[in-house]
């Protein structure tokens, strides 16, 4: 998004998505940009609650958006405030987020605090009449997520979550293709996020350990599930167009035994009504395979993170080479040393095709924020955006719960919301 007015079609062309088939069905939240022309002279006055590492990254995007004024900051840690003020020197500073919420000059807030603090801040913000962009995972428990979503409905405030893949051109294109059936029936999704890093941050004094390294402690985080899985599980349900019915999983601290309380090695299986499965795994002692969501249909595979897709049947080699190959085979196969009658099913070389001609410059975060700003200005909540974030959070929390209980859990019906996109398969389960 730039400072010039663009309509939706132009916007899609800029993303390299012109001509995509069923976008309105697959990614209806993109309609948020339908009003950009009319909102050009308007501005959204934003407050940032928790301008830490992520918060400041978001501020970097927001300060580029001509429709945004970051007018206030709230944080309880002075070094975070000092760094944030370098980006917005004129912003008001609050040590208590509740004071920021009382500020009538703030229309909307971005919440980028640790997981265990999201819910109360978001509830208070919506109650105070502010629109809310809350980082994922939205709540520390499923109950919290449910009450946040309910508050959004009750107050009618705009509610966005930090699920930036919803605005990532690679993912939008990938889902468009999946939903058009280009990859056949998708029965399996392997999602994983590996890295070789301890996830620790330097702590200036020991007393701040749990505050700075909040991700590593159970009281403030659910570790890899809430920090990483949340993004990728959402991709799975987006692709399949339904929610899983059951989940089971295991977690362990197998490498980084440094006093942390959250797992460094996790595997979960989510199963769906028609036999589909989605696995999610993360090991943070090896980064060889990095991160990916391998969406596998009977006709092909998509790896949106790489931005590539691969069809199962690739064009045959030129006839001339086929002929030579046949001769070669008939010579060698007739010899007694020609080998076994089985062939190992190692992956074939298939370099695939790029989803978009060039690698997109961004991962959807700035577009997610831009859509939030548009929605806050127009007062119109884009379709399905809050719901996608809600269910993504629920799924990672459910996976975490299954690991903790060491049992297979069914999707809890009490947390179902009125979301037709995903409701049908859950009804058949009842």
């Amino acid at each position, binding site marked *: 998004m730039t400072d010039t007015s663009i309509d939706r079609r132009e916007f899609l062309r800029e993303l390299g998505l012109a001509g995509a088939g069923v976008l309105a069905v697959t990614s209806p939240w993109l309609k948020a940009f339908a009003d950009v022309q009319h909102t050009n002279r308007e501005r959204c006055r934003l407050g940032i609650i928790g301008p830490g590492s992520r918060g400041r990254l978001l501020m970097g995007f927001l300060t580029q958006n001509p429709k945004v004024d970051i007018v206030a900051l709230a944080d309880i840690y002075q070094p975070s405030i000092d760094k944030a003020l370098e980006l917005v020197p004129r912003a008001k500073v609050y040590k208590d987020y509740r004071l920021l919420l009382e500020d009538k000059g703030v229309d909307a807030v971005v919440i980028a605090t640790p997981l265990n603090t999201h819910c109360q801040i978001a509830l208070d913000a919506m109650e105070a009449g502010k629109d809310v962009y809350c980082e994922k995972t939205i709540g520390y428990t499923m109950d919290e997520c449910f009450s946040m979503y309910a508050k959004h409905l009750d107050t009618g405030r705009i509610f966005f979550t930090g699920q930036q893949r919803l605005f990532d051109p690679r993912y939008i294109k990938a889902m468009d293709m999946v939903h058009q059936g280009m990859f056949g029936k998708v029965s399996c999704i392997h999602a994983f996020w590996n890295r070789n890093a301890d996830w620790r941050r330097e702590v200036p004094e020991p007393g701040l350990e749990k505050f700075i390294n909040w991700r590593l402690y159970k009281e403030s985080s659910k570790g890899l599930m809430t920090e990483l899985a949340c993004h990728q599980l959402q991709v799975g349900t987006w692709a399949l167009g339904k929610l899983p019915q059951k989940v089971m999983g295991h977690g362990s601290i197998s490498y980084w035994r440094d006093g942390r309380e959250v797992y460094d090695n996790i595997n979960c299986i989510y199963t769906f009504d028609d036999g589909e499965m989605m696995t999610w795994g993360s090991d943070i002692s090896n980064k060889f395979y990095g991160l990916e969501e391998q969406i596998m249909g009977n006709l092909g595979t998509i790896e949106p993170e790489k931005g590539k897709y691969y069809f199962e049947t690739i064009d045959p080699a030129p006839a001339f080479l*086929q002929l030579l190959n046949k001769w070669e085979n008939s010579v060698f196969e007739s010899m007694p040393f020609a080998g076994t009658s089985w062939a190992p099913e190692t992956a074939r070389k298939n370099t695939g095709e790029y989803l978009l001609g060039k690698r997109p410059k961004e991962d959807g975060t700035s577009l997610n924020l831009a859509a939030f700003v548009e929605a806050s200005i127009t007062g119109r909540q884009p379709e399905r955006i809050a719901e996608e974030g809600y269910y993504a959070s629920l799924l990672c929390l459910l996976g975490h719960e299954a690991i903790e209980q060491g049992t297979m859990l069914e999707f809890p019906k009490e947390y179902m919301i009125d979301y037709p996109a995903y409701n049908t398969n859950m009804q058949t389960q009842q």
Partner: protein
Amino acid sequence: MKEIILTPKRQKRELLTLLVCLAIAFCLNIYAVVAYESPAWEIITSLGYVVVFAAVLYALWTGLRLIVLGPRWLITRKKTK
């Protein structure tokens, strides 16, 4: 080192051999396109393979001639010395 002189007659014959190899490869390509029901444009797009295959044929043919005719040539050369 003694220079090897290719007489015009020899040059012509080698050129002809190469042409025959090319023709064989070209015909094989057409046959393959028909047999494998591939698109006709492969007759053109596979020309690279055709040339390489013709070169291989020519090399094989030359090797064969060296094996068969080489010893005879050596013997006659010794006799003429």
